[in-house]
């Protein structure tokens, strides 16, 4: 994927650019708002990582608003030290697709950027999700694995749906909390782990291979075993 990183802090930018390149992406970097806007508008990116406070007269919000005004729909992840709830709301209102506050774990940023870039390429509403031998019918809300029906609670269904929509990607606990429960705070207890472990009991335990994998220091990934 081609990713643009607009970030003025050298250390953070270097860390993000290196990490994204290691993950196999092509990364461009701009260290001020003007260059960032120029690059974002003139080239094609799959995703943009955007700092809010930028030198060069154009801050992150202005950059994004200008971009959206030009009908450029490239997915944007805000990366900002402005952590108040209202700041997040303002960022999302300006057209941001996701908002991550500094300091952050790189795994979280990577998971979110990859999730967004994938979503940007989505082709119309799906009625069926398939990962390996696991099938989910979004209309009848039925789940089958290897032809065998699996009964899920509504919340378990949504958790599995989220994992399947992001199959092959790392999904962090915070992403699950936001995407499945719509909660924007970090509980002290390992609530997500418990729910994923319950889902595993139903989806993985009765079968010889596992689909839901734990990714150390990051989160979870739903992935069919390589043949």
């Amino acid at each position: 994927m081609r990713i643009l990183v607009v970030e003025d802090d050298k250390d953070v930018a270097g860390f993000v650019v290196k990490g994204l390149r290691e993950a196999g992406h092509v990364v461009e970097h701009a260290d001020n708002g003007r260059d960032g806007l120029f690059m974002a508008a003139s080239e094609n990116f799959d995703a943009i990582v955007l700092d809010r406070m930028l030198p060069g007269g154009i801050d992150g919000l202005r950059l994004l608003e200008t971009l959206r005004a030009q009908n450029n729909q490239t997915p944007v992840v805000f990366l900002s030290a402005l952590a108040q709830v209202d700041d997040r709301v303002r960022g999302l209102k300006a057209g941001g697709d996701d908002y991550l506050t500094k300091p952050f774990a790189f795994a979280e940023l990577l998971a979110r950027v990859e999730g967004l870039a994938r979503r940007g390429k989505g082709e119309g509403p799906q009625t069926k999700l398939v990962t390996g031998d696991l099938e989910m019918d979004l209309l009848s809300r039925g789940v089958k694995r290897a032809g065998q029906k699996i009964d899920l609670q509504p919340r378990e269904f949504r958790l599995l749906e989220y994992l399947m929509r992001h199959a092959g990607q790392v999904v962090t606990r915070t992403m699950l909390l936001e995407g499945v429960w719509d909660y924007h705070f970090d509980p002290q207890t390992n609530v997500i782990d418990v729910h994923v472990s319950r889902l595993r009991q139903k989806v993985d335990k009765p079968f010889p291979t596992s689909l839901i994998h734990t990714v150390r220091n990051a989160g979870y990934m739903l992935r069919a075993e390589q043949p």
Partner: protein
Amino acid sequence: MHSAGVRFGMIYAGVFALSTIALAVFLWWSTAGLLDRQTDAAINADTQGLLERYSDGGLLALEDVIEQRLMGNVDDDAIYLLTDPALHKLAGNLNQLPTRVLQQEGSYQLAIERAGHRGMAQVQQIELPGRFHLLVGRDVEVHAQMTRLLTDALLWAAGAAMLLGTAGALAVRGLFRITLADVSATATAISAGDLTRRVRVSGREDEFDRLAETINDMLDRIGRLMDGVRQVSNAIAHDLRTPIARARARLEDAASHAASEADLRAAIERAETDLDGVVAIFNALLRIAEIEAGARRSAFADIDLAPLLLDLADLYGAVAEERGQVLRPDIPASVPAFGDREMIQQAVANLLDNAMKFSPGHGTIRLAAELVPGQGPRITVADEGPGIPEADRARAPERFFRGETARSTPGSGLGLALVQAVATLHGGELWLEDAAPGLRAVLALNTRVGPPRVNASSSANQPAVPVEAA
């Protein structure tokens, strides 16, 4: 005028003078004035009677009746005089009509000389047909003497009143200064840094006592806030120093002693975890400050707590089960409230986090909600853990407060502080009770219920009184 004491003294003197004048006027009106009015009425009646006789029987009848009335006048205060056109006396007890009388019609005062002594008379003069003159009056010498006495008395009284008023004004100014001196001295001491000083309460339970109590309450609160700030900065220093120091030690140790790359990595990862803890504390502190600043009131909306709480019960129910505990929700079909959905979610999540942390295995955690009529919605979380000793309960929601039983458990000591802030934001309260065994945390959201009003956003501003009956 730069002295409020002098101003109050002057006001006192002014009010005193005004009331004295009003009293004198009333006194005058009800004594001397009354006598004058009575005399006028008597003269009027007398004149009317004489004129009636005159129209019935002419001059002769008038002369007769004047003689009769003079005879019957026991008090010897009646004055009559009837004169012919040449101003010669026809009847009456005055010898002659004073010359200036001719020019004066109606009522007036007249100096008379009668039976050898001078006096004053109130008279009424009427011109009869044929240029005859009739004078009817009353001797008011007695009235005049009384009026003089009264005037003297009132003048003396005025002097006394002025003295008393001045003395009173001085006394008021003095009292004012004495009363304020203590407040002023206390304020000076406080601004000089002595926060322990308090205004003296006289015990008379008057306005000044109430003022003193209010000021003392304010000073107590300032003192508590100062303590809080000191305590929070100490706690921040301690709670953040510890993980930072640990991370630093790990990194330094790894840098100089790590035998293998795996060791190094493990040390770095543990340091990362420590730093994440630091970030979490910062986030919690900032979130609380954000809530306390009230900036989130813009996000207030009409919400139903029932699905919100059931979602949380669902999220935490699984965790409780995993730990062998039971989370029992007791939530009615609908609990309407007005507030910030995200904040309430986080507050209840914090209460549930705590309840599960402190409940023993197989313990039951209850999550209940109800709409208390007239008081707004109320959310209760009860556990069966060790509870909080009564002495600590009031302080438990303070930032970084950690009870004896909580010291060994993980946590930042900020959970309840956030719940408290959310309660305050919603014009409500958080209180902790003994659930015997365990702890019951009640989050009362004193919110408006019903359709939004124009000034809906300001309702959260109100103190803990029911805004509207449910």
